[in-house]
């Protein structure tokens, strides 16, 4: 059992939890993820480790309620226990001194997992330019935190309510166009965003790392459900990734596999919805 020490609403349906898990906090590295299960009937839900505090013995997750599993997770409160937390899973981000200029791109809640990476890059002395994208100003998350660990921050909103109007790729193009020598781009966010970033950097041959989120079960390399085509190899995202060279990733295949259970997810969500109404009436 893992206690939720803090629950904070970052934007509508997006929660930040600090979870008590000293050993995980001790071992976690930027880029890794965990798997939670809320109750006996629940799914195993993979979520990026958005932050860790080794001294306090906590890890943070930032998640969006998108379906049955994350809705049930969102109903938990401070002081409640999460039944299972498995971590740290996946490989850590490659962070080292002297990597030069790194552009860290977070789209939507992808800002949460990019934050510890930007911080790590900054701590070892790399130049960090961060791009944060959101639909509008209201749902932009973690801006203050990102500014604290970046040499420069560019914000984009789809509707122009804040920062540059447009997508993260517009901001990225601005940086490229002004002649900035970029050594590496790391992009985390919706798959369509990561794919656009990869297409934006391809002509310039800028190394581009993306963090993939295929459907997972165990997270330890046992089921192969998370397999993605990377170049001419099939990789298991949970153990070989989740980060890969974006220029080699088969995004079309990834998106297709992510849609595999769409119809069943609807049934599941209706079921959970009904259950919580029943609970509410009692």
């Amino acid at each position: 059992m893992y206690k939720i020490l803090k629950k904070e609403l970052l934007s509508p349906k997006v929660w930040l939890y600090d979870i008590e898990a000293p050993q995980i906090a001790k071992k976690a590295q930027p880029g890794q993820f965990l798997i939670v299960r809320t109750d006996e009937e629940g799914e195993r839900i993979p979520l990026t480790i958005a932050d860790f505090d080794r001294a306090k013995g906590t890890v943070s997750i930032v998640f969006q309620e998108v379906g049955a599993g994350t809705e049930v997770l969102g109903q938990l409160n401070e002081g409640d226990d999460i039944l299972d937390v498995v971590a740290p899973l996946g490989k850590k981000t490659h962070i080292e001194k002297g990597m030069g200029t790194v552009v860290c791109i977070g789209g939507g809640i992808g800002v949460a997992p990019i934050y510890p990476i930007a911080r790590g890059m900054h701590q070892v002395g790399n130049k960090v330019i961060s791009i944060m994208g959101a639909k509008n100003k209201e749902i932009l998350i973690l801006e203050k935190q990102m500014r604290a660990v970046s040499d420069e921050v560019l914000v984009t909103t789809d509707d122009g309510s804040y920062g540059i109007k447009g997508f993260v790729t517009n901001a990225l193009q601005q940086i490229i166009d002004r002649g900035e020598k970029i050594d590496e781009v790391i992009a985390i966010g919706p798959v369509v965003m990561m794919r656009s970033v990869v297409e934006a950097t391809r002509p310039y041959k800028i190394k581009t790392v993306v963090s993939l989120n295929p459907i997972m079960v165990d997270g330890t390399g046992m089921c192969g459900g998370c397999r993605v085509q990377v170049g001419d190899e099939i990789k298991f995202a949970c153990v070989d990734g989740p980060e890969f060279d974006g220029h080699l990733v088969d995004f079309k295949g990834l998106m297709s596999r992510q849609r595999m259970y769409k119809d069943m997810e609807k049934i599941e969500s209706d079921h959970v919805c009904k259950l919580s109404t029943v609970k509410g009436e009692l």
Partner: protein
Amino acid sequence: MALVMKKHAMPEQDPQVRAHNFNEVALGYDRETAIAEASRCLNCPKPRCVQGCPVQVKIPNFIAKVKSGDFADAIGIIKESNALPAVCGRVCPQENQCEKYCVMGVRGEPVGIGRLERFAADYDLKKPHEIKPIKYAADTQKVAVVGSGPAGLSAAGELAKKGYKVTVFEALHKAGGVLSYGIPEFRLPKEKIVQVEIANLKKLGVEIRLDTVIGKLYTVDELMQEEGFAAVFVSTGAGLPSFMHIPGENLNGVYSANEFLTRCNLMKAYKFPEYHTPLKVGKTVAVVGGGNVAMDAARTSLRLGAEHVYIVYRRSEKELPARLEEVHHAKDEGIDFKLLNNPVEVIGDENGNVKALRCIKMQLGEPDASGRRRPIPIEGSEFELPVETVVVAIGQGPNPLVQSTTPDMHTNKRGNIVADEATGATTKAGVFAGGDIVTGAATVILAMGAGKKAAQAIDEYLKKKA
């Protein structure tokens, strides 16, 4: 009295009915049938059956006790050699082990040793047991077991009985290894058997730490240097699924057997949406492979609502590696065996879903290294099997998580841990290994045997060190 040449039949659920439920297929002997079957045993002075049992259960001795109705004594005798008789009685490939060598099998059918073992074990499980926790001395040494499959569980039990404080680390949220996530409920009931055995270990004082991936949360070195474990037994199984590496294998609807069975058994997808994990079967399913894993996946598909299920296997019936009983059960339930066929491509529709499995017919050539006749494709014989789901059950390799973080524990070229056959000792001092992670995918009883041997060796190692 004339010899009864045939085994007493095992009562089982009607195939038409059981193909649509997850309840156990074989129902077990009642008292009278058990005694009658036990009476077929000749109580041989030099029992050949025992040689066929990897852990040398004293077969004639326990059968004599069943015959005389002393069931408690019978189970006592079995448990001297076998810690999980309710499991082995159900899943051992008896026709290749104990029963293969039974003299009764020369002219008739062998004694139903597995069925009698199961009977005695079930009798025992129904009785309330008081298990007293072990009282540990202040300076008791700690031993870590990595993986809670049959190898790990039997090592843990033996070590606890020898007085060590044992902690079992398990990556998944449930203990039991393949017994929990792989072998289906209809062959091995989880709550009635597997979890009872695990609960008994806990009562004995064994600690089980779930959700703990060794190689990630702790390395083996950290267990020994920082967490105070004097020795480690690695029993992480053969959990890495093999794929066919043919075109179309990434399409939606292609599962590894591991994923398919884990979703169903561990995550209880058969109770969707009450349990939230989805699993898609469709109306027609092709399971590729001919072992127990393939039979389990095929029969699970039926129970999840598939109307037509194929087993696609590249050799002939004779070479099917599955337990004989499972092949019979699968046939009775209506599984369609496409023998001497090999998949060459998975074909998808415009949405990326499987719509067919393209196969080529095979014929058998000369025997290969394994002694089985090698299948050879028949040119120009390709055809398409229309299916919505393909389950790949062609084998599992070793998961590298522990090995890759424990460099001084050596592996062979397949990635299996190198361990002494008699003791389980690895190349790293204080670290032992056994079960599928050493042998490659094998059997429950071999894994248990390895756990037991390693426990003995760990005890000797720690005593010598002290």
